[in-house]
């Protein structure tokens, strides 16, 4: 069975790559530019992945995992670089999730991208992206994970900059890659720390090594290593302070946003942290929790005032990723993974839904220009509403189950550490839940309810074709609670939480099992209060949105005016772009200019001065060359005499 599963997993991995190669080299010559081929490949990949997932689900064994290793590079030493794949429960489920969403996005793109001049290339890039993402999911080692990690960066670069004629798109793609690379450098350094200790990149071996106390450096180094590795996730999952690229990435085609910037690529960071979860020291976890909680809150505040339908979703994504990261930081491992899965479905649904709205409105993205669309786009509206409910964390939807578990885990973690300022983290999460409900409510009310604000565009709007709404329906169905847990108020009993249990740390000096038990106990304890408070928050948020945007109880302009500093802060995204522009970007340019200047006017000046001095000396010496025979004789004789004298002296 092992071999079959591994081979199937490899097939899932390779199919998108084949799709990429075919599309890039032959796509234009195929009928319909090969969209059916790419979609078919992904459909096949999804079916295989589904088979693998069913295999794991039917086995229902928490420890079931299949491995395949091969030697990639042998330098004739006792160690070698071994790459390989590992399929376990988490990988199998993620595999199915990624291929499903990728397949749906392919399907959706057939209509959405239909008029694009680089239609074939687009599908190729989607294939490359899916390949890289699956590579991360399947890797059993840090090295190939890093390789695919960067490839994901490349494919997102290509896809964000797909409409390269737009200056903003090109700039956004560069920004995305560069910001990601900052994180990648941290991750790479983290890998180097582990490598220099264990001379292996295999995760299981590293974990075993740390468990056996073979990590010879102090635990501080383990913390540093953990934080460095986490930096990779900060970049890819758009956490504070490297979140700035994600909203800009919305310049890419909308289906791409759904695939990359909502469901999969950004989840890679979370997935990666989950993979290294057990070697993270408590201090590293605290850092992770704080960054996650802060990001969840910060991004939610940014989303409040945006007017671009996709940007709201983008900030919402950052916020939700913050939840997941926070969940991992507080030790709610399975809750975080659960949220990764549920979020992928409902956020993909939201993005594709927004794409449908944009498509129907002829590329209008400003929500102030919309309104009343529920009549024109009924299917889109229903699916969008379902996904919004899931995102806002209303009971009966999937998002509630996972978000609730994370916040409960946060309270449990805080009381495990003795309360105090630790409570801030789950409190931030809870506040973010309120804000989430508000901004999603605002968006839905402005887009789908009320009177159309732009009559002309409204009149031309019509329901999207089937290839576009089918994915929406599928994804919205996947946002309903029964698929994950029969108890609509708790995911604890659901299959996911049982199949992927929380893990205990292997960091030396900590009683992993004891800590886990205590955390679980405390989390369980916090469960009901969390359920009540978070439902309350969601309802309050929606209610405020309802009163402001449906009943017009408050004049929004006046409200913005009275809270101007706060409004501006939110609207300008906390001025992060400006701050980075002034410090990092300008600093970089200045540094570059300075070194270019230094090179030309200092180093090369010295070089040329040396040359000039030699030439000048030559000019001086040339004076001796009078052309007169007798002076030459004189010089020769003087030379002889000097020799004489020297010989006499010494």
């Amino acid at each position, binding site marked *: 069975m092992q071999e079959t599963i591994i081979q199937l997993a490899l097939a899932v991995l390779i199919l998108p790559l084949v799709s990429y190669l075919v599309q890039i080299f032959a796509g234009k010559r195929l009928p319909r530019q090969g969209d059916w081929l790419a979609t078919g490949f992904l459909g096949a990949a999804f079916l295989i992945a589904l088979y693998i997932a069913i295999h794991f689900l039917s086995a229902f064994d928490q420890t079931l995992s299949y491995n395949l290793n091969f030697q990639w590079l042998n330098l004739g030493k006792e160690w070698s670089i071994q790459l390989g794949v590992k399929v376990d429960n988490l990988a199998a489920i993620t595999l199915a999730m990624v291929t499903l969403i990728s397949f749906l996005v392919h399907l959706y793109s057939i209509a959405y991208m239909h008029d694009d001049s680089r239609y074939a290339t687009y599908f190729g890039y989607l294939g490359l992206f899916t390949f890289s993402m699956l590579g991360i999911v399947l890797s059993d080692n840090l090295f190939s994970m890093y390789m695919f990690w960067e490839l994901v960066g490349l494919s997102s670069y290509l896809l964000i900059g797909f409409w390269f004629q737009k200056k903003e798109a090109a700039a956004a793609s560069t920004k995305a890659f560069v910001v990601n690379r900052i994180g990648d450098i941290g991750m790479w350094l983290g890998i180097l720390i582990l490598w220099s200790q264990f001379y292996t990149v295999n995760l299981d071996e590293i974990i075993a090594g740390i468990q056996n106390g073979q990590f010879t450096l102090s635990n501080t180094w383990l913390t540093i290593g953990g934080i460095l590795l986490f930096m990779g996730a900060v970049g890819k999952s758009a956490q504070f302070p490297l979140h700035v690229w994600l909203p800009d990435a919305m310049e890419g085609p909308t289906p791409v946003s759904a695939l990359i910037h909502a469901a999969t690529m950004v989840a890679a960071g979370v997935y990666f942290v989950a993979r290294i979860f057990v070697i993270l020291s408590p201090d590293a976890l605290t850092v992770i929790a704080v960054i996650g909680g802060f990001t969840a809150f910060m991004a939610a505040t940014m989303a409040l005032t945006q007017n671009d339908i996709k940007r709201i979703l983008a900030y919402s994504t950052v916020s939700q990723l913050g939840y997941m990261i926070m969940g991992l930081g507080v030790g709610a491992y399975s809750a975080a993974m659960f949220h990764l899965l549920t979020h992928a479905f409902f956020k993909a649904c939201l993005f594709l839904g927004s794409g449908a709205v944009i498509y129907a409105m002829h590329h209008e993205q400003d929500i102030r220009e919309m309104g009343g669309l529920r009549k024109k786009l009924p299917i889109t509206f229903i699916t969008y509403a379902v996904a919004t409910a899931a995102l806002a964390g209303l009971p009966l939807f999937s998002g509630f189950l996972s978000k609730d578990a994370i916040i409960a885990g946060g309270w449990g973690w805080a009381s495990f550490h003795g309360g105090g300022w630790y409570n801030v983290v789950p409190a931030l999460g809870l506040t973010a839940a309120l804000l989430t409900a508000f901004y999603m409510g605002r968006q839905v009310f402005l887009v789908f309810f009320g009177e159309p604000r732009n009559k002309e565009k409204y009149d031309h709007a019509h329901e999207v074709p089937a290839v576009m709404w089918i994915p929406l329906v599928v994804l919205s169905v996947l946002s309903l609670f029964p698929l994950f847990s029969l108890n609509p108020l708790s995911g604890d009993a659901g299959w996911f939480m049982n199949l992927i249990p929380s893990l205990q740390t292997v960091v030396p000096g900590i009683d992993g099992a004891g800590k886990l038990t205590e955390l679980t106990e405390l989390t369980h304890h916090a469960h009901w209060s969390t359920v009540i408070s978070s439902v309350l928050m969601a309802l309050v948020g929606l209610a405020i949105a309802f009163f402001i945007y449906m009943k017009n109880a408050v004049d929004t302009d006046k409200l913005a005016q009275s809270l101007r500093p706060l409004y501006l802060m939110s609207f300008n995204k906390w001025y992060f772009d400006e701050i980075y522009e002034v410090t990092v970007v300008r600093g970089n340019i200045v540094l570059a200019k300075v070194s270019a200047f230094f090179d030309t006017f200092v180093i090369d000046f010295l070089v040329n001065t040396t040359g000039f001095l030699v030439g000048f000396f030559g000019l001086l010496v040339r004076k001796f060359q009078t052309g007169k025979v007798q002076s030459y004789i*004189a010089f020769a004789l*003087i030379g002889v*005499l000097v020799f004489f*004298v020297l010989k*006499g002296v010494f």
Partner: protein
Amino acid sequence: MEVIMFWILAVIIVASAIATVFSKNIIYSAFSLLFSFLGVAGIYAMLSADFLAVTQIMVYVGGILTLLLFGVMLTNRITTMSLKTDVFNFIPGLIIAAVMLGSLLYVIWVTGTWAKHSPAVWDTTVESIGTLTITQYLLPFEMVAIILLVAVVGASYIARKDKQNIKS
């Protein structure tokens, strides 16, 4: 006798050399040089180098000096231009020559014992030189012969009147 002979010759040589160097008239220089050469030939004879003494007279006096005189005649238009020529760079020349002399004399006197052998006395050296020329010194001899040939050809080539110059 020998010593007196040496002094006489030395005085002749040095005096005529001084005359050669300092004389303003080229013709005087040339004739002083003649005496200088003859004196040197005398010194050769004293050093029992009879063959060389004869060669000195024949080559220098008969050949080189004549050549020099030709040079003087050919390069100075007697009718238009005085044969007088003056001295320049007097002070530097004097300094260099004086320092040179000083160093040479210093080296000679400091070293003292140059001689490895009591003065050899040969009746005649012609035979031995002849033998050496075609045995031990054959190769240099041949080379000198070639150099002479080259010099003859080269000199006549250099000194020939350029046709274009004549035209213009």
